[in-house]
């Protein structure tokens, strides 16, 4: 995996994580992964090396915060929650994404019709 591609993926993944935490409230890593996988209709599968660095980056940027708690199966787990700064970023990224998507759609849609 080239590093450029990883960064794009990381950016998108951060967006998904923030959205998940906004909708679901505090979750542990597994919870986040499961929710994202379900939402993507199992087209995405997250391994350690993808999910946790993304969480770390969000935490370093103070967009999420974490605290230790106990999972439903009685294990020590870290619960992540979105912060006000995270909410701000999510709102901005949602706007940007919608904007980008609509622009890209303008380019792609006519060609689809032609085909």
């Amino acid at each position: 995996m080239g590093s450029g591609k990883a960064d794009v993926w990381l950016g998108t993944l951060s967006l998904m994580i923030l959205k998940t935490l906004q909708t679901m409230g505090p979750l542990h890593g597994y919870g986040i992964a499961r929710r994202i996988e379900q939402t993507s209709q199992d087209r995405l599968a997250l391994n350690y090396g993808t999910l946790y660095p993304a969480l770390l980056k969000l935490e370093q940027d103070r967009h999420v915060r974490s605290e230790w708690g106990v999972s439903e199966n009685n294990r020590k787990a870290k619960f992540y929650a979105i912060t006000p700064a995270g909410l701000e970023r999510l709102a901005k990224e949602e706007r940007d994404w919608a904007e980008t998507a609509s622009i890209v759609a303008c380019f792609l849609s006519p060609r689809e019709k032609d085909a």
Partner: protein
Amino acid sequence: MATFHSLISRLAAPFSGRSWSGDLNAEFETHLQLQIDANLRAGMSEREARRAALDKLGAPAVGVEAYRERMVFGWLDTLLRDVRYGLRSMRRSPGFVTVAILTLALGIGANTAMFSVIYATLVHPLPFPDLDRLYVLREQGLMGNDSNVGNPVSPRNYLDWQAANKSFSSMAALRGSEYNLGSNDGHSRPERVYGAVCSYTLFGTLGVKPVIGRTFTADEDKKGAPHVALISYGLWQSHFGGAAGITHRTIRLDGEEYSIVGVMPPGFSYPARDTVIWSPLLPVSSTEGRGNHQLLAVARLRPGVTLAHAQAEMNLIAKNILASEPDALTARTVGVIPMAEYVGKRSSTILLTLLAAVACLLLIACVNVANLLLARGSRRAREFGVRVALGAGRGRLLRQLLTEGLLLFACGALAGLAFACGLNVLLAHYLPRLLNSADIDLFIPSVLDWHALLFMLLCAAVVGAATSLLPAWRAARLGAVSNADASGRTATGGRKSHRTQNTLVAGEVALCTLLLVAAGLLARSLYNLQRVDPGVRTGNVLTATVALPGKQYATQRAVSGFTQQLIDRLAATPGVVSAATIDVLPLDGWQNDTTIEIDGRPMPRGQWIDPMHREASPTYFATMGIPILQGRAFTVQDSEPILSSEPHGMGAVIINKALAQRFWPRGDAVGCLIHYGDAPGARRYQIVGVVGDVTYQLGNAPDFVVYTAALDGESQAFHIVVRTTLDPLALAPALRAAVKDLDSGLPVFAIRTMDEVASQNAAPTRCTSFLLGSLALLALLLASIGLYGVLSYGVEQQRNEIGLRIALGSSRAQVLRRVVAQGLRPALAGLAAGLLAAFALAKLLASLLYGVAPRDLSTFTAVPLALLGVALLASFVPAWRATRVDPMAALRCE
């Protein structure tokens, strides 16, 4: 803002002390369990559930690695971890690490110490402001021939130069002097100290101010002015305890009181490193001749004036002087020499040779360590393969190996620093004495300064990066290759690295050859020099120096009375064969010379006979073992005309063989008359004898010498020489006692045997050849270790192949020959390259050699033979080990 927080937490992460990896693993574990639970709920079996979860989530180690990359500012945590990892892997192979660190310490340490010496002597020799504008002025072309070193300046020329020139903002003159420094309490024995008499302009010219008091005024630099002196900081501390109010004190020099007007700053000593007292130079009368070349003239170039302009102006001034006094022994041109260059001149060839030698040593050390790292890298291929499999990228692996290499160099540098400090103290102490026996103008601080430290760090870093890069790159590649073949033990894996190693070994053998040739040439020079006949029998002779204060011993008769009594006393001492006095010892430098003319044979204008001038007591020739070839030795009566100051009494001189043969080739010198200098009305001297040649410098062709019969120098310092039947040093107490009986206030100093004087004379060559020899031997040792290491590693690598060969019927002798040949190939290549380089470079050493050509055949034969022998030895051990390979074991391994 987010970026700032991110920055802080990233930077803080490696130091927070929290075990983040433990936390992360706990998180992973929970994640895994939850995934397994979910899989179970989906109807998988226990086993399936676990397997599916593991497949999906990947190896925790990979996750940790990815997390780490994210966590820190890239390098910081990685670096710390690499350092820790490196330290651990170093601890695992202490033998390798010790050899590598010692090798590096040797190379880096020797270079740092040598650099420090070079910096102190050649780059920044004197602590004067704007040193590049300070020049030493010399009279050149005195004898019509142009030697670029020139002569010291005569007082009258100095005065005229100073008055006429416009190029220099100030000019000063000085000469070294020695004093009997009286004790302050008047009880303890006086001691001999070095000082300088200087024009009052000296300190302004050099740009140095006293820390206490003032320098001299123009009025103090005049005839009849009261005695004043400046003292060094060291003397102030040692003799006055650093007492306040020092400018109200006096100091007793040669029995006379001098008012102290100031103290010079610490570290200031000029013109010699032992100079501790300065007093004004008493001016000369304008009627004095110009032939008295005795002053060191220094000058500071005026801002905006170029050297070429100053040079042209000084030459013009010299030309005008010569035109007004065409018979004078005076400069035709003026040497305007940068002061820094002048100071380092004598030693620069030796020092640069030594620097080149230690640089070679460092290169060899580096090659060795690089080879060790290469071999180790290949050996660790399996480890790297595993790491690559675990997700470490090539760059990551490279970085880690580089860190390990640099770590090694950091340790080497640290050990090298300790080594350099010790070496520097030794060099600072011995080198000036050894290299410059006659002229003390070499200053070496005994503490490494920051320049040297900077140099060392730079040296270690550059060399470290350069030598670890290749092995690291190779190992990282090997690691990537072995990824596919996890055995990490391929027959072909080592081939290419072997070629690299062989090239490196050839390189170090070449460097080693260079050093050996240089050392060989110098050793031959030393051998030749020590076999030179100095013209005196140095064994069983004790010498000592005494200086009579001018005030008490004002007349020559007083001086002569003292010396005669001393000689008589010493001659009566048991064990003494004979005793004598002389003003300048043989083998102790040129010192005094004087121009002579032979009666009835005037020299053409501008040409002079300029023999060394020596003042000897009648017994001197017998005591020193100088043969009398014609005529007779002096008698006591010979000194009478000089002592009685009767202007027309005939004096007696003895000349040496070289002078006699040059001007009286038919052997009829005895009986002829000569007179001194350019004064036709001067006293006549009759040649009463011809004696054997005596050298003042081993290795020089014999110079002309004229001896007179009594001490009549201005300094009133002379040497006592005593020939004994005993150990000469055992006579020292008797000698001291004899002087003390005659005058209890006189210090006896520089007590040495004549053998020591002779040995000191060859010291620069001995010192250089010793240092070069040691360096060459070290290089030989390192190169043979390198060769041995590469061969051993090669044998280990080819264990299977060798086993196979033996199994297929190769005899042990064949195996032995094969491995030895493998070792000799790079050695021979290196030897050839090294000999070629030595052949090309040897001429640079020519000025250091004596009695041996730079391309000396025997040296160029002996060195390759010796090197070949060592290479054979170094190859033989691994080769012998190869023959011990058990074919069965090797095959089973495969």
